[in-house]
């Protein structure tokens, strides 16, 4: 055998030995595994019933094809209470592009002839297009649009020279998630959330466990390198994480009719990149913590809170205060949630999703490198 061959052989033997041992640990501790696999299903069923949250400052694009005083007044009615924030006007034809690029969450379309219809005594029609992939926001927008339309009709009815009948109808049509069901919206978020927690916790515990047991000293006295330990430890949990992802998606599609419009391969790719980052985060914690208790606390705080609150899973990122919005940029769950929603609900492909994938890749590489660097092979 050549030197390179035997070197690669020993490398694989060492990584394989560590991965295999980890698998045996998992097999010996079926409760943890069961918890990791049952949790997604239970959580999904619990969350499936949806919760409603307050939404403010929805980004609204106005497509004013009438360009009259009346049409401008209607647009103003939407934005004057800061419930909607105007963004640059766009063509209604281009709604898909606007939504895919996240330029706006809703588009108000005022058709040509709107003022004439009003003057004639109605009914005047306007249309509100909604990006309902984010169902919580969509539900809120729906209510707000109704309220604004109603008060606008009343105001016009009381103005002199216009007939008394309510003359404005705003027709709302949702894109992507026509019924604005929250299960559909919650599944991608939940998948990211569950993968984050169990990936961070499992790795944080397994490395801290080696320190506590004293076996880390034994490993460090052998020719096993830090990278080999890291890779060997990450691999089995990567597989567990992917199984979780498939479970959540399986329950989501079968019980809650979540569509998988895009490529399943792209979903897996996103899952691998996201998990790599989360596993690296767990590793970093356990390298720094050295005991299981501290590792558990740091692990759950650092995975649970950001992925629950800053990922856009429950609270849309656009509705966050600026500071949190900024922080959310370094939360990988944010990119995972976005990627999953895009792929599953909008059917977007690599061309649209790559920025999310890139962000997760950067995070994963950075944090695994950091963990490996901080992983001291010498004791004390």
């Amino acid at each position, binding site marked *: 055998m050549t030197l390179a061959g035997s070197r690669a052989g020993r490398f694989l033997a060492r990584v394989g030995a560590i991965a295999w041992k980890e698998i045996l640990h998992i097999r010996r501790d079926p409760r943890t595994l069961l918890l990791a696999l049952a949790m997604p299903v239970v959580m999904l069923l619990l969350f499936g019933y949806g919760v409603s949250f307050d939404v403010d400052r929805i980004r609204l694009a106005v497509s004013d094809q009438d360009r009259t005083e009346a049409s401008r007044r209607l647009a103003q009615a939407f934005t004057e209470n800061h419930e909607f924030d105007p963004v640059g006007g766009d063509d209604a034809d281009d709604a898909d592009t606007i939504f895919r690029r996240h330029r706006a969450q809703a588009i108000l379309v005022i058709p040509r002839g709107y003022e004439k219809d009003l003057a004639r005594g109605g009914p005047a029609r306007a249309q509100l297009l909604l990006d309902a992939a984010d169902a919580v926001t969509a539900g809120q927008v729906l209510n707000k649009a109704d309220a604004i339309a109603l008060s606008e009709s009343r105001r016009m009815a009381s103005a002199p020279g216009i007939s008394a009948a309510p003359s404005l109808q705003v027709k709302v049509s949702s894109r992507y998630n026509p019924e604005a069901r929250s299960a559909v919206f919650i599944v991608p978020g939940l998948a990211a959330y569950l993968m984050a927690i169990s990936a961070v916790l499992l790795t944080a515990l397994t490395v801290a466990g080696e320190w506590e047991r*004293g076996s880390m000293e034994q490993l460090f006295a052998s020719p096993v390198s830090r990278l080999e330990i890291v890779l060997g430890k990450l691999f089995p949990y990567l597989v567990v994480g992917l199984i979780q992802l498939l479970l959540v998606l399986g329950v989501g599609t079968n019980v809650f009719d979540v569509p998988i419009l895009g490529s399943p391969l792209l979903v897996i790719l996103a899952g691998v990149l996201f998990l790599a980052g989360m596993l690296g985060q767990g590793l970093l914690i356990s390298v720094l913590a050295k005991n299981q208790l501290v590792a558990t606390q740091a692990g759950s705080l650092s995975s649970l809170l950001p992925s629950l609150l800053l990922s856009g899973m429950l609270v849309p990122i656009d509705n966050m205060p600026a500071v949190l919005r900024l922080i959310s940029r370094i939360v990988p769950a944010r990119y995972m949630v976005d990627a999953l929603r895009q792929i599953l609900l909008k059917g977007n492909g690599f061309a649209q999703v790559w920025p999310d994938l890139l962000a997760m890749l950067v995070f994963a590489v950075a944090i695994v490198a950091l963990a490996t660097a901080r992983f001291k092979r010498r004791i004390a």
Partner: protein
Amino acid sequence: MNPAHSIEAERLSRRFGSFLAVDDVSFHVEKGEIFGYLGANGAGKSTTIRMLIGLLTPSSGRASVAGHDVASDPEGVKAAIGYMSQKFSLYLDLPVEENLRFFGGAYGLWGKDLQRRADEVLELTGLAEHRKAITGALPGGIRQRLALGSAVLHRPSIVFLDEPTAGVDPEARRSFWRLIRDLSRGGTTVFVTTHYLDEAEYCRRIGLMVDGRLVALDTPAELKRTWVPDRVLLVRGRNLTAGAAALRARPGVRAAEPFGAGLHLRVDPAAWDGAAVRTVLEASGGEGVSVEVAEPTLEDVFLAVVGRGAEAQAAQEVAP
């Protein structure tokens, strides 16, 4: 490095903050010998081992192990040695066999080679019948044998065993030491630390550590000669009082005290033996005299060494 030496340590020191855990230690270990490293809790035994195997960087001094410098080539050292740490480290939730396979894998063994070595080691350590047993369910003595087996799976030329028999019953300790001697006969150098002085008798040479310093190093017999120069004689018989007084007056007799019905003597072994003592006692009216020579133990050596260490310490503290 002398090619007959497995380990060479030269003025090795390690400090933790202001605390000097290992203080200017020099020694060598010859190929194939069992080298015992003795000392009380906190004497610096584990710290010395950790420096020798590349886990801790020495604060000063140098050491080489199996021809590799521990500071500049710790990886070379690691590949050449086996190590059984004090706070062990088998995976208790795994079967015996899987522990062996894991540590074999960690040293780069795989496939058929790994299987063959694991079988050999199971045979060697007498664990073949336990191969499928969960490690945590086995008694401590068997686990220690498994730990030793895991440390020699890759046929290292040197093994470092840090208190391998702590907390194990005497019979299991004896069978463990049989294994150690088998290894040494097979050419493996064994560096072993222990608390048990009776075990140290099995070592070819012994280093004694007190508070981070290596205060004595030699074969057990030589240590006894230099550190316990007196011989203790136990005398039984009747009418020994006059004889005891006569003995006390003679040169080479350091003490002669009544002890139960008999006498307890401390003498210079060069000047006195059992027969000479009996002659003196019988000349002074002693009857039915029998003399038994108590050979010094390493226990006596250790007490003498620690006593000397304490005196040196006291002298240092008094000195300006």
